[in-house]
């Protein structure tokens, strides 16, 4: 006998007494469903209707047409080439790139610092353990925005002015106009050199693979990573020397030199960028630290003991037993923290960093089109969050521990 469709009203035809509609559970269910749907649709319709009516009444433009107009605003230190002649939309993209640049760096640094914090919290050294506990307690219990104010106005702006910049070997110059370091200025031969390096990378990849195979085949340690790095270094240096001998080296050093009150040349990280990344890093790292600590602590002691009992060294215990198991626990909540960091980056406005939000504000000031801009901004953040979640889910699926 085939299964009748679930809840199919026809299968009820056989019932002997007819059920009044208002007591029939199928009817009741359908009615509530429809009522709820109407309520929700009605609410959305109500809001949208108000929006259109009010916008009309107040002469608010809800269209996206303005996005192609000339932006005419200045964005300093744009990460991608930008001029006020570009469109509003392009200016918005500059903001997006700035947000991504700050959050990606923040993610990397917060991860590193977070792991450090997590490990320090597990240290045998009581003092270290406590100091990091105090750090976590101090940072976490204060709103991020307050930390950012403090970082920028209390610390970064109070660094020495450029004339008195702290000169670190490198050279690296620290001042309240940012961090300047030496950098390479590509010359005509730079492309050639890149090709040589690329070739070395490819060769290194194959050498590494070969050595690794040998290692697993014979069990003899063959140092595949070391060999690959050596190859890369040799390739890079040899290519450099050859090109330099034949004319100009692929990169000419660009050293920051103080001219007037600003440094010229070299590579610069603006104080705003620095302050934003720093306050986000320091804040999110406390959360990642606790995640790491929890994950490591959650690995049963028996795992470590079993690994030691078969003679694995402490490094190997860490590499093959602790980290693989801890990572499974660490990654999902850490992805959540990455999303939090990204959202927190909207506080860039506090430190004067031109992120999506700041650029959007200038665009709104100029164009008056707030509704479309905010739709754009929210969509952008949702997209970023979705990408992170996707990566997290893919990872999760790939490392799921198999159970019965």
């Amino acid at each position, binding site marked *: 006998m085939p299964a009748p469709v679930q809840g199919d009203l026809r299968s009820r035809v056989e019932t002997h007494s007819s059920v009044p509609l208002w007591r029939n559970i199928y009817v009741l269910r359908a009615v509530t469903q429809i009522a709820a749907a109407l309520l929700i649709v009605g609410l959305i319709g109500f809001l949208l209707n108000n929006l259109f009516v*009010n916008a009309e009444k*107040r*002469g*608010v433009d809800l269209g996206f047409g303005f996005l192609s107009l000339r932006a*005419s*605003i*200045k964005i*300093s*230190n744009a990460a991608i080439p930008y001029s*006020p002649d570009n469109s509003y939309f392009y200016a918005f993209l500059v903001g997006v790139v700035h947000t991504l640049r700050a959050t990606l760096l923040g993610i990397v640094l917060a991860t590193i610092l977070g792991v450090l914090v997590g490990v320090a919290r597990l240290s045998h050294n009581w003092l270290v353990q406590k100091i990091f506990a105090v750090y976590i307690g101090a940072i976490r219990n204060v709103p991020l925005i307050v930390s950012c104010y403090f970082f920028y*106005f209390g610390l970064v*702006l*109070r660094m020495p*002015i*450029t*004339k008195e910049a702290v000169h670190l070997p490198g050279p690296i110059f620290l001042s*309240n*106009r940012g961090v300047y370091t030496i950098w390479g200025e590509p010359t005509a031969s730079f492309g050639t050199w890149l090709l040589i390096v690329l070739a070395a990378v490819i060769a290194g990849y194959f050498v590494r693979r070969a050595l690794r195979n040998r290692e697993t085949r014979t069990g003899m340690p063959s140092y595949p990573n070391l060999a690959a790095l050596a190859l890369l270094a040799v390739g890079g240096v040899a290519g450099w020397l050859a090109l330099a001998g034949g004319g100009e080296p692929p990169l000419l050093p660009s050293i920051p030199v103080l*001219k*007037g*009150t*600003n440094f*010229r040349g070299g590579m610069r990280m603006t*104080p*705003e960028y620095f302050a934003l990344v720093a306050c986000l890093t320091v804040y999110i790292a406390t959360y990642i630290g606790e995640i790491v600590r929890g994950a490591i602590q959650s690995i049963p002691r028996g795992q470590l003991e079993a690994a030691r009992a078969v003679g694995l060294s402490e490094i190997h215990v860490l590499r093959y037993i602790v980290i693989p198991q801890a990572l499974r626990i660490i990654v999902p909540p850490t992805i959540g923290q990455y999303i939090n960091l990204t959202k927190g980056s909207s506080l860039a*406005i506090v430190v*004067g960093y*031109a992120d999506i939000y*700041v650029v959007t*504000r*200038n665009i*709104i*000031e*100029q164009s*008056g089109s*707030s509704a479309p801009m905010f739709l754009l901004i929210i969509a952008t953040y949702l997209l970023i969050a979705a990408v992170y979640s996707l990566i997290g889910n893919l990872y999760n699926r790939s490392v799921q521990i198999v159970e019965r």
Partner: protein
Amino acid sequence: EDATKPAGYGHRLEQVRDRGKILCADNTELVAWSWIDEDGKNRGFGPDYCRAYAAAVFGDATDDNWEIVNITFAERPTVMQSGEIDVMTIANTWTAHREVHWGNFVDIVHYAGLGVISSKDSGIVPNDWQTLDGTTGCTGAGTNYVQMAADMESEYGITFELALYEIGGVRDAYDAGRCDFVLTGSDGTGSFVRQLTRSTPDDHNIWTSVFGKDPWAMLVPHGDDQWFDLIRMVGWILVNAEELGVTQDNVEDMFANSPSVKVQRLLGAEGTWGQDRLQIADDVAVNIIKEVGNFGEIIHRYYSAEAEEKGWGFYRERGPDNLYLRGGLMYVPENT
């Protein structure tokens, strides 16, 4: 009832009366212009104007019938569009775009150009725009200076770095040496930096050369001529009172005793220049001046040596905002 109103007259005045309170948009970050004192009171040039409007509508300004709605610069267009406030007293540069998109600007209360204050350390030569090339400037985020800076660069073929902050941050950043110059109103009114130029005058150059105009004016929402006229009249009354020598102290006396026809007309003895049409008291000028004094007194309250002494503002020369009769640009029609 609409039929009884002239075309273009709206309900703003009724709304304000029903509400019992006039809402003025401003913020609290600009020394002399608008701030909050130790007792939590809003003070400054903007709030004084708000009080004047309250006195015009309600007869006097109490703590309850005027309110400073605190907004940020970037919120200005949207607050105007939503129509939630009655008049904007924030330090507002009047531009053509804003006139069309934001609302109706009333007469100018402050004349300036987009000027520069640069630090002497920076090597920037005052009034030489080319020397800004390669330097760093600071200015307020979400202001039209951001656009004017772009124009300035293309005009002179220079590039400089521009760091943007909320107004308070501009001063901090410049003070700390984060930037070499500040883009601001040409007499410094628009930024706290003027303050620094007073405490350490030798360290700064205030440029006399300006890049374009930077007129400040109050602003009302589009679409209500009656309200626009009322707000505008308050401004005229303040200036005319100064011209006629009517002050906070002598206004009652002048009202009672002044033989001058012009004074009597201003103070409403005749009641003929349109008070009825605006639905305000005949002696509206008396109420206003009792509340805040005349235009000159307001200026004096915030831009004088005494103000600086008290910490309420700072000293500056009275320039274009002086009366037309004394060589300035404050030129308003008569109350006839």
